[in-house]
């Protein structure tokens, strides 16, 4: 089910909070593709998508009963997704410090053309040049989060979000060269 209105979504979330497995299933089905897109934009790794998305939804199922405002479910879910991705990237960075030889096995770039088009390859390349925080910012905007919601998610002000978003977009444009692989 695609939660079309805030009320329908809030009802679904309330049912999920009471442990209704059908409601939890519907929530996962409704958001799995968007969360997968967010994870991919954040990590730039196809092989992380399923695993991290699964972690995010497991956290969602286990913690949804603690969500105070069911209407805020979407921004809560994407905050969960952002934090999970950032944790994963931190762990990856730490692993690289302790296992320097693991890096070459861990960071195998997806070959050009492995993902559909020149534009998509260029977008992946450009995203890879940005800091994870900036990638999260752009991915949250693409998810339709408002500046106020993003500010709340990141624990900052709307003005700071706007400034960072402007810089992130500039950087993305700088690195976005559709023929970069050639």
């Amino acid at each position: 089910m695609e939660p079309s209105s805030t009320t329908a979504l809030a009802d679904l979330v309330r049912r999920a909070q009471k442990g209704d497995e059908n409601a939890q299933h519907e929530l996962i089905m409704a958001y799995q593709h968007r969360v997968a897109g967010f994870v991919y934009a954040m990590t730039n790794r196809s092989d992380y998508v399923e695993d991290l998305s699964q972690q995010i939804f497991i956290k969602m199922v286990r913690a949804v009963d603690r969500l105070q405002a069911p209407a805020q479910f979407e921004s809560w879910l994407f905050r969960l997704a952002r934090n999970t991705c950032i944790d994963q990237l931190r762990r990856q960075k730490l692993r690289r410090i302790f296992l320097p030889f693991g890096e070459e096995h861990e960071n195998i770039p997806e070959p050009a053309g492995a993902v559909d088009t020149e534009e998509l390859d260029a977008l992946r390349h450009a995203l890879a040049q940005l800091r994870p925080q900036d990638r999260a910012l752009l991915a949250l905007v693409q998810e339709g989060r408002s500046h106020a919601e993003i500010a709340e998610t990141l624990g900052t002000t709307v003005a700071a979000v706007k400034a960072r978003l402007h810089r992130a977009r500039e950087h993305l444009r700088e690195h976005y060269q559709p023929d970069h692989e050639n």
Partner: protein
Amino acid sequence: MKTEDQAWRDLQAHASAQLRAGFADRALRAARGPQDATWRQLNAHAARQLRPGFAERVLRAARAVAEVPSLSSQFALSAATAVLCLAAVIFVQDRSAQLADERNLADWERIVLSARDAQDAPDNDSI
């Protein structure tokens, strides 16, 4: 035509021959940045990475995780076990010390008694 003009034309022709087909489109795309369609492609690619039955797998895994005792309860169990072990060690230590004391006291009493017996016994040499 002047030789100089011809040279400029040749240079321009050479330079423009270096540009691959579709240069203008690429330049415009780069200037505009990624369009919504490209972001949608990225989401679609990511969505394809999820194997069928994803939601069912998540719910199964969430149930399995719920069955695993939480970190705090594992810690509480470890702490209780440690306290129990410590109490057992203290009890055994106390008991063995008490037994050793009793044994030592009994030995001393035996020594005292035999010393007293030796003192009370008549001197054989004097008889």
